């Protein structure tokens, strides 16, 4: 088992660069082609923060998956990607799709050799289980991010209301709550 693990990991290490590049490129397919061109400038940390973050976080995730036990760092890398995707105009399945795409890329890269070697195959299945675990962590982080946006919005609504209430009192007026205002905050009523 240990020898098979070394084998799989050594194969994946050897193909690391190709796997990460393919994984990164595939994950960008949810974006329009004009945007993909920009996102691929992965060395521009500040002018292309999205592409840079995605690439380096994916690299980090992959390296963690090659460890015997992935550390909590893997959640931090996932967070970096998901925090961005959670505010973009993409649906939830597209947001987490990149995690599952890693399975496809790894299978393609390993080729038929893996599937004809029983020990290697077992290692590969274990590796896929790690990716499944990763997907569950990803779902959790994504929902946390969405919830955070709602919390931020509510905090801002509360702050605005407090200020308006104070001003209304200072001005000697009755304070209009959302329910009394037409057209504003309809989705909060």
């Amino acid at each position: 088992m240990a020898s098979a693990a070394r084998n799989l990991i050594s194969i994946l290490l050897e193909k690391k660069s190709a796997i990460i590049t393919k994984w990164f490129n595939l994950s960008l397919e949810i974006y329009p082609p004009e945007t993909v061109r920009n996102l691929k400038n992965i060395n521009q940390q500040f002018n292309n923060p999205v592409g840079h973050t995605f690439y380096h976080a994916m690299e980090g995730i992959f390296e963690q998956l090659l460890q015997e036990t992935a550390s909590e760092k893997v959640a931090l890398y996932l967070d970096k990607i998901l925090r961005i995707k959670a505010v973009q105009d993409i649906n939830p399945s597209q947001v987490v799709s990149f995690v599952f795409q890693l399975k496809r890329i790894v299978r393609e890269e390993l080729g038929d050799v893996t599937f004809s070697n029983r020990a290697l195959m077992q290692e590969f299945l274990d590796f896929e289980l790690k990716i499944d675990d990763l997907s569950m962590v990803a779902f959790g982080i994504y929902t946390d991010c969405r919830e955070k946006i709602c919390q931020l919005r509510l905090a801002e609504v509360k702050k605005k209301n407090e200020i308006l209430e104070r001003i209304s009192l200072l001005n000697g007026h009755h304070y209009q709550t959302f329910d009394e205002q037409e057209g504003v905050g309809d989705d909060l009523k």
Partner: protein
Amino acid sequence: MVKVPKKEELLNIDYKPPKTGWMETPVVFKPGTWCYPGKAESLQIVGLANPRKWSPEDDDWKLPENWKEIILEGLRERLDRFRSLRIFMDICVRCGACADKCHFYIGSGDPKNMPVLRAELLRAIYRKNFTTAGKIFGKFAGARELTEDVIKEWFYYFFQCTECRRCSVFCPYGIDTAEITMIGRELLNLIGCNIDWVVTPVANCYMKGNHLGIQPHGLVDSMEFLVENITDITGIEIEPTFNRKGAEILYVPPSGDLFADPGTYSLMGQLMLFHEMGLDYTLSTYASEGGNFGLFTSHEMVKRLNAKIYAEAKRLGVKWILGGECGHMWRVLHQYMDTMNGPADFLEVPVSPVTGTKFEHAQSTKMIHVTEFTADLIKNNKVKLDPSRNKGIIVTFHDSCNPARAMGLLEEPRFILKHVCDFYEMPDETIKEQTFCCGGGAGLGSDENMEMRMRGGFPRANAVRYVHEKYGVNMLSCVCAIDRATLPPLMHYWVPGVEVCGVHELVGNALIMEGEKKRTENLRFEPLEGMEEDEDV
């Protein structure tokens, strides 16, 4: 019977976006990405067109019957009036230099947020109606028919541009996409398509002098509250005045700083400094707002709302005007005020009564920024500062778009910060004239637009995260009231552990005042590190 999809159909997920051209991809209004429309009542106050109750999510936007005619006539009039607009419509060669410079494009990946394509929304209509090639060749010449869907697209994308002008820094032709957005918003206003976060402050400003609609007695009460806080912290009583005729200086801060933290702390710092310098200044209860949301409405509205500043300076008989820590206010004051409401020949070129420095750059407008005033004081050793009171606060500076790009205020805030705290710069490509927007300027800082703000603010937050991780930066300083409102949630989302402050809050902390008691708390009433009150045991 309901058609149940087959297993293969369910598994056949295409991640790629639809392959329609930009003209054929209509806008979808999803929650979190647009702002509430202007309240009818506010539109009526300032006489804006077509007041009504409507929502961008509705199919029917209740446009005036002749909306098309109004838009085309409005565009024709503006093409004649503004030579810059006609040039901007004609000369773009679509080189793409601006494409990846917009913070909304970087954060969202939506190609219509590329400045070139945002401008193309207007250009396509211009070509169709005002150029021969466009009239004859239509789509082949990049022309497009004006329809209600185009208006919806304009509304979506012109209210997704914060008029920050970062793209214009990179345009080899100097096309200012912010001005294209401004014209786009002007045209939309002609048919009553605007947002409440702009229109209601405009109406408040017109009626009461400030965005929040605070009446004179409210302003005085709020000021008293801040003054009491200063007394609690320093033991010193200061007495700012309102509408005092014959004062040397009229001081105009953004009204948000009177009410909303952390702006209040920054205003307190300014009041403390003015007191310590013995400045002869007054505030006006009508020119009680430096900001001008007319800038996000129309040129006429900019002029209308700005007029109060010179009018009040004249009425009160001051010599010159000092402006507070505000952002877009400075584009108006620096670039438009003089020609719109000047010449201010009744005022004098600002001279610091403390150092004698003559602010020659303000010869025409007669108004300077408070960081220019303070930097000059520090440069001339007129202020006693104890930076150790800001111990534990590790600061970086966010250049607010308008002070940086529209008035060139780059060094003064940094000079001040370096004298009052530990300061670290963000990477070069994210500061000064290349600064990234907070994502909520130009009226887009509303709560309902939160998701879009998080997208647009990501490039800024990314640079903050870098200095947070590298140097332990925990405070993002800025000189803009909108920044102080929009950056805190941005930091909470992207870089928890970083707070936001104005530059003068840190000055106020460090300022050694004549006769003050031992400071044990900073302006936020937080204990000062190493200077805690002696406790009785």
